[in-house]
């Protein structure tokens, strides 16, 4: 202070400057800021473009999975084919396999073509327009209602995958010439049937409700078992990861002494969050299946593995939100004579609840989309049986949504590409719903202090 006051001449002489004119330093600063803004906008634009590209490719590939082509057939369920003895014995009826129904479908198809007056040169095997699933559908119907044998019943059956693809633009006349599964004549027949009103494309609920189907009938494949499997796993994860994670975080944050041992635990929890998920799959395989003897492909095992994966996420989020509660609230509670536990449960936890809920739902969303560990514990199996209602259902084999996507992308028939993209859309819809719930809960519980 004093030397400045003593020697005013030491200060550089100030040149007169106008505020209306920018000096060089200000110009450089403004330019730097403008550059930084540009970088930021470019970064945002790149990520938005990537997202738009991803969504548009998934939607353009996958939305068609929600539409399906059906053919209406009047099938005569002849007694000589389905029940030779004529006594409607369920055991005898069950002996007739789906192959026994194939001639009925062929006859029905030929009758339909004749009825509509469709003539196509060189047409062979018109029954190939019908999905293999149709015979199974009729067999189930007959076994459930034996009384219909001998009558003519109108069925709405799935069109074969190639025919369905023709109406979605996947199969063309040109590609059909090189395709052993479908001929151009069959495509022409399909078109003629559509004009005659006996073939239509409409919304496909069975994509969501039906189980997976085998390699050669993509048209019948659905997500039902996968959705239930994923749902069961989320129940297991929520029921285990939320209480364990919150209890661990509260103890570590509020009660545990701060020493080397708790530091070690802390570091390890943070590291767990970064462990590759496949490692959890190996862990689940060796502990839950090989050691504990739980069944393979079961949602309970998947749920346990995903719980292990989700715990670090929940613990980190919960601890962060507990830390963000101002210490004055704890002081206030302790000051009026609340015990430590009362202070935490009456005052700190309610304030931390929005953060905990958000962390939990983010963890669940992560778990919902996780594939790798589930492959190792057998969730990749082909499961057509719906699991039972909980709690037994937790131990029944099931699939999972992301694994179903993985599974379908492995299959040869191009119709499964569409199915896989459709499954991704279903998965995304679930994720969006969960995130919306997280935001709603946050709004609902958020309090200011």
């Amino acid at each position, binding site marked *: 202070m004093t030397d400045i006051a003593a020697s005013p001449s030491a200060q550089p002489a100030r040149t007169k400057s106008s505020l209306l004119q920018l000096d060089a330093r200000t110009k450089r600063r403004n330019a730097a800021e403008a550059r930084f803004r540009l970088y930021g906008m470019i970064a945002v634009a790149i990520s938005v473009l990537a997202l738009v590209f991803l969504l548009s490719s998934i939607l353009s590939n996958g939305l068609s999975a929600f539409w399906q082509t059906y053919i209406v057939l009047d099938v005569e369920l002849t007694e000589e084919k389905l029940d030779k003895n004529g006594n409607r014995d369920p055991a005898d009826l069950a002996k007739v396999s789906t192959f026994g129904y194939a001639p009925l479908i062929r006859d029905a198809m030929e009758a339909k073509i004749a009825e509509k007056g469709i003539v196509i040169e060189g047409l062979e095997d018109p029954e190939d327009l019908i999905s293999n699933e149709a015979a199974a559908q009729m067999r189930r119907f007959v076994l459930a209602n034996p009384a219909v044998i001998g009558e003519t019943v109108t069925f709405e059956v799935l069109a074969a995958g190639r025919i369905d693809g023709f109406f979605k633009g996947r199969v063309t006349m040109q590609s059909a010439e090189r395709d052993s599964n479908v001929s151009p004549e069959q495509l022409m027949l399909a078109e003629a049937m559509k004009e005659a009103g006996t073939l239509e494309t409409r919304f496909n609920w069975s994509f969501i409700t039906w189980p997976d189907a085998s390699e050669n009938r993509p048209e019948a494949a659905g997500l039902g078992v996968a959705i239930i499997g994923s749902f069961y796993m989320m129940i297991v994860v929520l029921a285990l990861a939320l209480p364990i994670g919150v209890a661990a975080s509260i103890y570590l944050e509020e009660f545990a002494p701060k020493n080397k041992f708790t530091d070690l635990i802390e570091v390890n929890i943070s590291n767990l969050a970064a462990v590759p998920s496949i490692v959890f799959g190996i862990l689940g395989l060796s502990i839950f299946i090989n050691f504990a003897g739980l069944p393979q492909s079961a949602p309970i095992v998947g749920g346990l593995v995903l719980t292990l994966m989700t715990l670090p996420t929940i613990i980190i989020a919960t601890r962060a939100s507990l830390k963000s509660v101002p210490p004055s609230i704890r002081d206030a509670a302790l*000051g009026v*004579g609340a015990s430590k536990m009362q202070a935490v449960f*009456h005052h700190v936890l309610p304030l931390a609840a929005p953060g905990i809920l958000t962390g939990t739902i983010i963890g669940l969303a992560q778990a919902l989309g996780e594939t790798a560990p589930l492959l190792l514990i057998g969730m990749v199996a082909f499961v057509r049986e719906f699991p039972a209602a909980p709690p037994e259902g937790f131990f029944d084999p099931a699939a999972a949504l992301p694994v179903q996507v993985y599974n379908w992308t492995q299959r040869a028939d191009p119709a499964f590409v569409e199915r896989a993209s459709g499954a991704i859309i279903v998965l995304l819809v679930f994720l969006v719903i969960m995130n919306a719930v997280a935001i709603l809960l946050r709004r609902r519980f958020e309090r200011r202090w």
Partner: protein
Amino acid sequence: MDDARLVERDVVMTETKIAARNVQVYYGDTHAIKDVNVDIQDKTVTAFIGPSGCGKSTFLRCLNRMNDTIDVARVEGDILLDGEDIYDKQVDPVQLRAKVGMVFQKPNPFPKSIYDNVAYGPKIHGLAGSKADLDDIVEKALRRGAIWEEVKDRLSEPGTGLSGGQQQRLCIARAVATEPEVLLMDEPCSALDPIATAQVEELIDELKQNYSVVIVTHSMQQAARVSQKTAFFHLGHLVEYGETGQIFTNPNDSRTESYITGRIG
């Protein structure tokens, strides 16, 4: 400073409420409180003054064991409340804090309704047998906190929506709702404007009818206005303790004199 007021004030000799004997406090390796002996009297306002970091807040927080929440803090010596050692192994700090209430520097109402803020302490200590009892306790506490008239029509509104001065009076009401015997105040007016400060000081003056009040303050004027006894802390030592009038007009220790005349601190 209003010397006339100081001289006129009559100090009623009352019994000792809190007695501290050879109290040492360590924060890890730091020796924060060195050998403090003090007798705090009942139905009296005792002010702790001293420069920042001298240990007055630390000592105050020893009196209701709020230092327990700090892992590295260690207290030695005896602090007796009505002759009972509060650092005895058998003493539960929760029970102690019901007897020794505390008001903090920054108003810290719970993010709940005004009613719930005050009712919380009585609820957890089981002081109210019924809803009507609780209503009475809340009203009485809010009246004692001199805030009843302002909030009686909006008890269900959040306590955090009040102004700073109102929040602090709400915190005082919350502290007295549990019927403590001693009320500790850690710079209760430092976040308040002069008008709110005057209201709180008036309140402290009323509270001394029922409680032993210990107040930490940076404002010597405030200490002179509200307290009957003053303790001057410096670098962890209790330098001087005596009648407020005597400390401010005729201190025994040269350090006290330097501080109150503004030469140190």
